[in-house]
Structure formats: C-alpha cells, structure tokens
C-alpha cells in the first residue's frame, strides 16, 4: 500500500482526509476529516514512537535495538517531542480559527 501523504505536494500545507472506504464492502464515506496528531509525523518518526512504546519507554533498550548510542536516540526523541509540541500548537490555532 502507498505511504500516506501528509503534506500537499504543491503548497506543503497539511492534507486532510476527504474519503474513507470500507475494506470489505467498499462503502465510501466522504467528508472533511483532520489527520490525528501522530499521523502528521513523518513515517520514520511514527516508527520511532511505536518502537519507543514497545520498549516501555526505555532509551537504553531503544539504543540497543537501533544500534545507536544513547544520546543519539535521546536527541532523536527530543526532536520528535519538539515537533509534537509544534503540531499541537498548530492544531490549537486551527481549532481557534474555526471556532471564531
């Protein structure tokens, strides 16, 4: 299956979901659905978050798993945390704009 695009290839703006299809009966639902926060991360960042959960949040285990040093993994985690905070701010400001 193709990788889920999260940014518009033309203007780099965040993409929303417009249509959903049932895998079994092909029923289609149309609307305007925003991507949840975790799906707005890049695919490698999503993998990192999932692996981090599977390692029970242990950076040492993550470092062993990824064959990288502890500070490299921790720095990667810090980058993702920072990105999540920025995404949360973006979502908050979008919600405020809609409510006004």
């Amino acid at each position: 299956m193709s990788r889920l695009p999260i940014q518009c290839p033309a203007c780099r703006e965040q993409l929303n979901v417009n249509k959903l299809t049932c895998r079994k009966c092909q029923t289609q639902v149309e609307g305007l659905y925003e991507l949840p926060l975790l799906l707005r991360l890049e695919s490698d960042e999503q993998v990192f978050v999932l692996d981090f959960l599977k390692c029970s949040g242990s950076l040492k285990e993550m470092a062993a798993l990824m064959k990288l040093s502890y500070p490299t993994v921790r720095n990667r985690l810090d980058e993702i945390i920072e990105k999540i905070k920025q995404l949360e701010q973006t979502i908050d400001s979008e919600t405020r704009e809609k409510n006004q």
Partner: protein
Amino acid sequence: MNTQALPVKMNRLAVWLFNPFTYLAGWQALMLGVILIIGTALLGSVGNVHFDGVLDMHMGAEAPLWFFIAEGFIDWLSLAIYLWIAGLIVRGSAFRMVDVFGTQALARWPMLLSAAAGILPANQRVTEELMKIVQNPGQPPVLALEPIDVIVFAMAMIIILVTIIWMIVLMYRAYAVSCNLKGAKAFVSFIICLLVAEAMSKLGLYTIIKLFPLN
C-alpha cells in the same frame, strides 16, 4: 520490531570517522577512550612525545611514564569538565555526565596517530638537532641531517596538524551529541570552553611539575 535506521546523510564510514558518537557513547566510550589515552601516553613515552595541553603536542623533554599518562588525563578532564558545565548552562535540560566525559575521552584518539608520527626515528633526529641549536644560542646554527629525515619530519608535521584538527572536530561533535546542542549556541560555548581548557590544562601541568618535580 519494525525499526528503521535514523536518516544519516553521511555514509557509515564517514560517520565512524567524524561522528562515532552516533554509535558509541556512555561507559563504552569512556572505557575505550581511557584505554586510548593511556595507549597514547605509552607510545608517546617511547619517543618523548608530550601532549602538554588540550591542543598541544611537543617533542623532546624526557620524563617518567606517569607524567605522560598525567598529561593525557589532564588534557581530557580539563575540557570535559568545562564542556559539562557549559552543557548544564546552555542546554538547560538533563543529559548524562558519562556521555560528556566518555565521548570527550574517545575524541582524543587521533592523538594516538600523532604519537605514532612523533616517535619516528627521523623526527627524533631532527628534534635533537633543533634542540642543540636552541640550547647553544651563541653558536652558528648547523643542521647535520639527511634530506630523508627532513622529508619525514615535514610529513609527520602535516599528519600531526591534520590529527589535531580532526580531534577538534571530534571534540565538537562529542559535545553536540552528548548535550544535544546545535548552531551558534553549541559552537560559541565550545570555543570558549576549548580556550579556557587549554589555559587550565597548562596550569594543571605546571602545578603537577611543581608538586612532583620530574628530576
């Protein structure tokens, strides 16, 4: 588990050469770094190659083995302590002390190559001749050397210069990775620490010589 490697722009060999801390840090780097510092001191003691300062390397003066080892440890700790303090001030969030000290110990490994270049017999001969000129200022300078000695000496100087630059790059990368610092903050704080540590390492060695005279 479905783990992907981090996106690494440089190839694996380049990462090992210029940023091995991507793969190696903490206690592993500390143990390996200390072994390499002692190894460098042992090799240096063979040909009186001194690392008398964080960025210094000189040849000539005889000294007991313990002094060569002390030089290595003072050079390492002078910089590591200041970078650790700088990291605490600039970073403002937690990082492991063992990563700073371990990676800084490992960052000194190019000095092993410097020591190897320094102990070459040709370098010893050139150094002895230069020392004679320095110690006898009244006499006209005469260098009784073979051309090959001068060529080897010049090549060794280039190798030593390159390894010192390489070590500084490793020291910076070690600091940036250990404390997760980037950009101007990382660069400026590193340069300040390097300059202060250079002066403090000289002071530390001077104190050791005063406390434990070498002769």
